């Protein structure tokens, strides 16, 4: 391996930049989430610390650093201490393979706007994202608290269950692009002239739903379902240990969003995409659109029950992902050149069918609510009385 000092410096600088960027996106995201949720709930949200309350997450972090680290009596001290780090580290390093731009020319060198262009990018992501669950399980187990344990067990079962549809959903785009490298997948989307969300809409939907579950976000936030398990696996955590869990959750959210952006939304591609400086901007715009969707869902939907959650993962998403894979493979094998247009048409048909089916299901899903009450009348949801 030739040793090149400049390469070394570039690598370190890139890693540092991504690291700092990730850690600064988190407070912005937390702030955004609180503001958006507040907006949905007709509240004001944080508005005291800094302009528009922008410094609120920072203030929280500083406060948390100065808080006492409480160690539960009977806790496994070593595991208890390291569990937040175990949760945090994979969350950060998963991002390494996500490209946020094409190639920049800095000081006469070509610099990939990506920490590491690994040729097995997707496998890397899958491998690391499942590591995060260790932190949660260990935290739940080591706390010597039943709520923590239940939360930890819940989340481990949940995360590994949704790992399957998540992994399967990504095979479709891989088939279409013929590469595991995320950079190569973006290029493939450029060549095809269409983002993979169009030919692989089903995969995108499965991926996104699994992503909610993987990041423990509402409506899949069961491991920390406050109304059931108080605070779930981090019930016993205080001070900055708690903050690490909290940050890891948001970093994971960013990663899931970034991967979705890269694989399904064309990554850094966009109008005037050849201007290098615009590429990270496009990337961030798409990323935040997905994150906004995450937040929006949280403000709208109730939480699933545990058995329904497992059922959804194993009995709905897994077959769907498998189906998507089989159809994609068949189309690709029969018509290698026009696979993407055919899949796009199929996706559109699927979306149409889905919309119609959902309409029918939701119309039929209300049973006669109460004796003497008829179905909601057409003009409004009010029940009318039979005489």
């Amino acid at each position, binding site marked *: 391996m030739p040793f090149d000092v400049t390469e070394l410096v570039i690598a370190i600088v890139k890693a540092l930049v991504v690291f700092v960027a990730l850690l600064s996106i988190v407070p912005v995201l937390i702030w955004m989430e609180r503001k958006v949720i507040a907006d949905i709930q007709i509240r004001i949200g944080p508005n005291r610390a800094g302009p528009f309350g922008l410094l609120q997450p920072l203030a929280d972090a500083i406060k948390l650093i100065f808080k006492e680290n409480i160690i539960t009596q009977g806790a496994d001290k070593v595991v208890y201490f390291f569990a937040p780090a175990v949760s945090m580290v994979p969350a950060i390093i998963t991002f390494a393979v996500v490209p946020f731009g094409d190639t920049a020319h800095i000081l006469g060198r070509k610099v990939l706007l990506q920490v590491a262009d690994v040729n097995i990018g997707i496998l890397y992501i899958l491998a690391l994202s499942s590591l995060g669950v260790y932190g949660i399980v260990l935290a739940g187990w080591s706390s010597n608290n039943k709520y923590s344990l239940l939360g930890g067990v819940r989340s481990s079962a949940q995360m590994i269950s949704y790992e399957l549809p998540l992994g399967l959903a990504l095979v479709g785009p891989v088939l279409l692009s013929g590469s595991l490298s995320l950079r190569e997948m973006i290029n493939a989307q450029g060549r095809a002239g269409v983002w993979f969300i169009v030919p692989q809409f089903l995969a995108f939907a499965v991926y996104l739903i699994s992503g909610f579950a993987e990041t423990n976000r509402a409506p899949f936030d069961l491991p920390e379902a406050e*109304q059931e398990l108080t605070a779930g696996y981090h019930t016993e955590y205080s001070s900055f240990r708690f903050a690490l869990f909290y940050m890891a959750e948001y970093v994971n959210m960013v990663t899931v969003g970034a991967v979705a952006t890269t694989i399904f939304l064309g990554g850094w591609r966009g109008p005037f995409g050849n201007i290098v400086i615009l590429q990270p901007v496009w990337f961030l715009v798409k990323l935040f659109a997905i994150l906004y969707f995450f937040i929006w869902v949280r403000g709208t939907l109730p939480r*699933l029950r545990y*058995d329904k959650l497992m059922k959804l993962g194993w009995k709905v998403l897994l077959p769907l992902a498998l189906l998507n894979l089989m159809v994609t493979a068949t189309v690709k094998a029969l018509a290698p050149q026009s696979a993407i247009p055919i899949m796009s048409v199929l996706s559109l048909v699927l979306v149409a069918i889905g919309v119609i089916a959902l309409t029918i299901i939701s119309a039929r899903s209300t049973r006669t609510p*109460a004796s003497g009450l008829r179905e909601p009348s057409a003009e409004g949801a009010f029940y009318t009385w039979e005489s």
Partner: protein
Amino acid sequence: MTVTDELITSESFDRLLAEAKALSRREEGREITLKCEPAEIVRLAGVFRDDPELRFSFLSDIVYVDHYGQPGNGARFELIYRAYNLDDYRRIHIRVPVPDGQSVDSVAGIWPAANWYEREAFDLMGFRFANHPDPRRILLPSAFAGHPLRKDFPIGGEEVQFSVNWGEIEPQETMLDQCFEGMTWKEYVERGDDIETEAGASPLRKWAEEDRMIINMGPQHPSTHGVLRLALALEGETVLDAACDIGFLHTGIEKSAEQLMFQQALTLTDRMDYAGPLGDNLAYVLSVEKLLGIEVPPRAQALRVMLAELTRIASHLLFLGTHALELGAVSVFLYCFQDREQILDIFELASGVRLMTSYINIGGLRDDIPEGFSAKVREFLEYLPPKLVEYHALLTRNPIWLERTRGVGVISVEDGIRMGVSGANIRGSGLKWDVRKAWPYSGYENYDFEIPTGSNGDVYDRYLVRMEEMRQSLRIVRQALDNLPGGDYRISDYKIVLPPRDRLAVSMEAVIHHFLVASRGFDVPAGDAYVSTESARGEMGFHVVSHGGPKPWRMKMRPPSFATLQALPKMVTGGMLADVVATVGSIDIILGEVDR
């Protein structure tokens, strides 16, 4: 009303049965009062529950009174069992004089609802019930000594030491220190209750012995509606068994009421059901008025109905919000609170207070409604319906909502009746029983409204019933507003209500009345009275006992949440942990009312 003063003997029993059967719903006399020996109660209860023509299947409450030092009563204590026939709405009051120290047979085998009622009577007044399935204290700590609702229980009070320096305050032995066997209050707090023998845990002991996980849900839990403690035996996520532990919020309101004048005790009722305080005001006031034998003017009646229904809407909005919150739909929670604020604004406009209004007073209302009140209520009548449509759109057909609520926390009508469940909770199971229709009060018979019922008795049906009740309440409010009578807002007997302020400057008599009512109160004729009302949570009423004099001798409340809570373990057993949360939210309990 049939009253038999003599104790039941075997000869009089048949005659009494015949008399009880003769009372039918078409006649006015639907109340039966009878008296029996403690030894007879189980036999009597069995006959009255099982006889096909009687069917008094619903035990509303067991009232326990200590007639300590009162002449004219043979026995010191008295138990009053109140049971209903929910087909023709006959009511029976079985009075049982109990001499000091005598034990009474438990009727929990006849009416399972009696389980908690009898535990309460034991806890607070020291009754001994033979063959009781679970003879433990219920509201007070297990280490507590004595029974505070006995009249000879000392009322404590500790001297307040004024000092600017904390160190100068000397530790004193207080009343509380004498209340625990062999230890002071501080020692008790430091030791904690013995978990194994403590209330709530012991029914689960067999699961603990089987090495199942026993988890405490509450009292410090985000979704137990206050300070309810649920001990759950879990297998993974499945609930094997559950036990309720209550009393964390017990503040001795019934004991406090005995130290206050009738009109002062009113303020305590606000603090019980703090989500629907005006409903409690009304229930209490109606009982006292029945004892006094007064009828309030029509304007007061209509305004009371209007306020009670607004309270019901406010309470149901609170229910909807917290219920949705517990199922993870956080936004609905905040929307509902905003709507509820509108009602609290109306209360504030009328009474100056948002929550603990004490606005409905003995003899009418405290004040007449102010200018702009009607406009504000009309505004609200226009405001809420679109909001309700919105909540239906958000929740009623939401697949996740349906999955979380349908078939969850089911209770059948029969079980509900056995456990004493009332209100929207039993209507969700399909029983069309509403006190406003069954035993109308405050002129409810003049209003046109429907009673929504469900059919499955699950969380979803209870939710729908409450959603519809809000709309029916709006109908009632609109009718009351449209036909609001003029006239006085209270009676004009100034021996009971305070004379008008402007009279004080011109009339010596008014000054005397004012002085007497405010400082000494008014005497209420000896006797006792109970009026059922339909609060937001179910059948609510106050059994007020007077021995003459300005203070209630005994004020026994029938808190609907108390009985409903008793049925909770039955609803959640076999479900999942998340269903417990959904079910607790759906029965809409208020711990302030349960614990008093």
